[in-house]
């Protein structure tokens, strides 16, 4: 009975311990890197209802929140100019140079922007945020040669930064001018929102927040609650009930892209 091989038992114990120490951190990292394992549901259609009557002219809170959340240098806080000036003199081309006077460069990424509108016939003025409209039939996805532009099952239109070759055809095709091209090297990126020089990017509807059950940063930041975010397919959701009861429109509805973003008071 005392034939138990102590040495063998010790060896097994040590081996088990070593194996745990070696494998466990890797498993942990693997788990962290892959995040949620279950796929997103196609039953959900994420969308927004933007109440333009509640959107104040001059208020830029949604834009600032987006820039902060997604690590865009954005220009709203007047970031440093490019170290490399344009080598050709900025000769007047007869066109409007007012962009250069603002702190934003025409090469800066803008995932969301405020547009001031004036009705040509009535003179009525309004202000609204514009971003990727997360179309059901997105032209950017149609034209992308490498399938880098894609639509997630829950309706969010995204760019796979590993596949994007930077051809900018999607920027030509987007009717909302929602996309930006990364013109400069990037520093201090937000780890949740990887970006890449030479690729195209746009509003992701803060997909990293949605996947954690949070709202997009712009919706959360709006002081007047003008941006209502939710699942358009869920009849019980606030957004679905409101879309069903108040007049709202899709921008460029004539193109029949069925955007997930709707506007009220336009």
């Amino acid at each position, binding site marked *: 009975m005392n034939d138990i091989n102590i040495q063998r038992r010790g060896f097994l114990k040590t081996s088990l311990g070593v194996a745990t120490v070696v494998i466990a951190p890797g498993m942990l990292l693997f788990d962290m890197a892959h995040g949620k394992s279950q796929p997103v549901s196609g039953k959900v259609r994420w969308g927004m209802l933007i109440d333009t009557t509640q959107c104040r002219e001059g208020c830029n809170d949604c834009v600032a929140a987006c820039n902060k959340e997604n690590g865009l240098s954005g220009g709203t806080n007047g970031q440093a100019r490019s170290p490399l000036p344009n080598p050709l003199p900025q000769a007047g081309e007869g066109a409007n140079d007012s962009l250069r006077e603002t702190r934003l*460069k025409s090469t800066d990424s803008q995932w969301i922007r405020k547009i001031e509108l004036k009705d040509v016939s009535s003179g009525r003025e309004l202000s609204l945020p514009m971003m990727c409209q997360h179309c059901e039939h997105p032209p950017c996805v149609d034209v*992308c040669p490498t399938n880098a532009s894609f639509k997630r099952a829950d309706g969010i239109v995204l760019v796979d930064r590993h596949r994007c070759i*930077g051809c*900018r055809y999607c920027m030509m*095709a987007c009717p909302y001018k929602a996309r930006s091209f990364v013109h400069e090297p990037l520093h201090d990126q937000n780890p949740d929102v990887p970006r890449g020089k*030479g690729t195209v990017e746009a509003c992701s509807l803060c997909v990293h927040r949605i996947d954690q059950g949070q709202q997009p940063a712009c919706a959360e930041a709006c002081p007047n609650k003008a941006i209502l975010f939710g699942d358009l397919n869920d009849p019980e959701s606030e957004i679905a009930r409101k879309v069903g009861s108040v007049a709202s429109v899709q921008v460029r509805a004539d193109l029949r892209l069925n955007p997930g973003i709707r506007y009220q008071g336009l």
Partner: protein
Amino acid sequence: MSAQTPIQFYDQRQARFKNRLFYSLVAAGGLIVMAGLYAVYLMEHHGHIITGMNNQIVWGIPHVFAIFLIVAASGVLNVASIGSVFGKAMYKARASLAGLLSIAMLAGGLTVLMLDLGRPDRIIVAATNYNITSMFAWNVVLYSGMFSLVVVYLWTMMERRMNRWTKPAGFAVFAWRFILTTGTGLIFAFLVARQAYASALLPPLFIVISFAWGMAVFLIAQAIIYAWNGNAIAPEILQRMKNLLGVFVMGALYLVAAYHLTNLYFAHQSGFERFILVEGGIYPQLFWWGYVLLGNILPLLLIYLPGQGKTKSITAASLLVILGGFAFLYVFIIGGQAYPLNIFPGYQASSSFGDGQIATYHPSLYEFMLGFGGLAIAFIITTVSVRVLDFMPHDKPYIAD
């Protein structure tokens, strides 16, 4: 005659001079290619910030060069098609030169297009991930297919045992290049939201315009090759070719006019037409002076005016057609993007992202370096090939057919 020795001496000297000239031309072309590659390196290192392109004008000077080269590469094959498909002997003699020019320009144009990508290092992704609904993805297949098809076509012409396959290969090239230029036109025609582009007229417009540009490139190359070899082209042949150039130029001008007139007829497009034809600063200037006057009227005068139509004036006309082509593409590609998207019809829009504003574009030197690099690639391929292989047209005594 006692002049035999001096003639030999003269020939040798000329041969040596030509040899040196050849190597200096190739070296000059190589330098321009190197400059283009240096620009690419800088664009890769610093990003597209060093170009004049921005989030409003996303396609700039490199696309003007690339699209010119690709469209002309398709059009130059017209010469080959008239020979192989329609059986005209004088064009058949020129088919191989046309094929060579096509390959050279396609290589140059595609290189520029590829190196202007944000991530040219990922070009293989375009082959491994293929989106069937993308016109760009289709064009990748069309361009590479045309390249291989023309190589095979050249082979059937230059290898005597393969000669019997020349006609089918010529037919295949003939069909392919029509589809290819349709594809190039469709890249723009499918952009439904942009006033400048969403038009079914664009594919036929690009096809006819390719005839004119390709013919112009061919006539210049032909004139240089004849001059290099000390031959004079038969006046009857030049006469027919210049008339063909004239017809193509008029056809292209007609379709460009039709494109603008149809736009003018649609009320919602009149703002864009006013911009591009009258008020848009550099764009109407380039359109009327560059494209219409220098690129069409003047060449037509040089071709058809009594007393004109000799080699020199034909070469000048061809050069002008090419310059006009660049002017046209600048207005079409950059002017078309400069006019703001009409996202909210009936509203006046303004924003920090150029909504409702005419976009500005100041092309940078690097973009021109890349564009000229593409031209230089086409030049080197042509020059070296013409030197080492026989691309000289061999005309039989001319018989009108």
